[in-house]
């Protein structure tokens, strides 16, 4: 594994988990600057994971920075095009912007990839919630 594949600084998966959780905690505590700092720091630490990108996208989306949110979603999907987590959240984002066809496509792909897992369930619950708009 090369240095760039592994990331600039090697960090254990356990520590990555801890940092991700810290970021989400800050996010839910509405300490958004700290959350952003953590997630942005995680991007180079976990270059092969879409999770920090999606977390950043959700942060931008929550603060109505929609362009940056879309960029972050796309960056996550570029790393892992089959990320059901990224697709489900991106579907929500697209529904919010009235891009229903794209949203449906993203959500259905998420359900196909992870039919019984939490990401598929998220996609399904979003489809149910938006059913009156479809």
């Amino acid at each position, binding site marked *: 594994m090369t240095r760039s594949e592994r990331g600039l600084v090697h960090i254990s998966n356990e520590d990555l*988990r801890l940092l991700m959780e810290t970021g989400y905690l800050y996010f839910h505590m509405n300490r958004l600057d700290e959350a952003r700092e953590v997630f942005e720091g995680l991007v180079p630490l*976990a270059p092969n*994971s879409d999770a920090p990108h999606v*977390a950043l996208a959700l942060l931008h989306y929550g603060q109505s920075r929609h362009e940056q949110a879309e960029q972050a979603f796309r960056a996550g999907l570029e790393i892992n095009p089959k990320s059901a*987590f990224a697709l489900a959240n991106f579907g929500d984002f697209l529904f919010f912007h009235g891009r229903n066809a794209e949203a449906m496509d993203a959500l259905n792909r998420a359900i196909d990839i992870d039919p019984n897992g939490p990401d598929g*369930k*998220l996609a399904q*619950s*979003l489809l149910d919630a938006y059913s009156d708009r479809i």
Partner: protein
Amino acid sequence: MTAPISRIGVRTYGMDTSDVGRRQVDGKFSNAMKVAGRALGAAGSVVAPFIPGGSVVKAAVMGASAFASAASRGDLNANAPMAGTAGMTAGYADGAAGTAGTSLTGGIETTMGTAGDSSGMGMMDMLNLQLAVQRETLQYQALSNVAKARHDAAMNSVRNIKG
């Protein structure tokens, strides 16, 4: 002696009752009502176990007995319900004669009427409100499902992150 009767929500269905007040019932009528009421009550109790819906009939005739008792005390009012004449109950009275207003459907009808009268809402308004509440509950449930699923998915992504 006539006990005071307070009336609430009396419906007259077009009958002019402006000149009808409390009446002092004379002795003959009082006695006749007493006898008829007791006989009806006794018959109802005996027959109730043997006929379909007997308990309803029994409740109705017991209402008639109560009505008879009220009559015997002279607590009658033109708008007080004929207990046991379920569905024909046009109004009700509480207080001394209120016991006469306990017939089954009459009770439901008047209860609903009271609810409607007191809040100024009709049956259709109540139904519409119920539908709106039901719709809102469904929407809330859908959002609650999304929130839970979002949390589970985020936690799953945290668990699975790899460097």
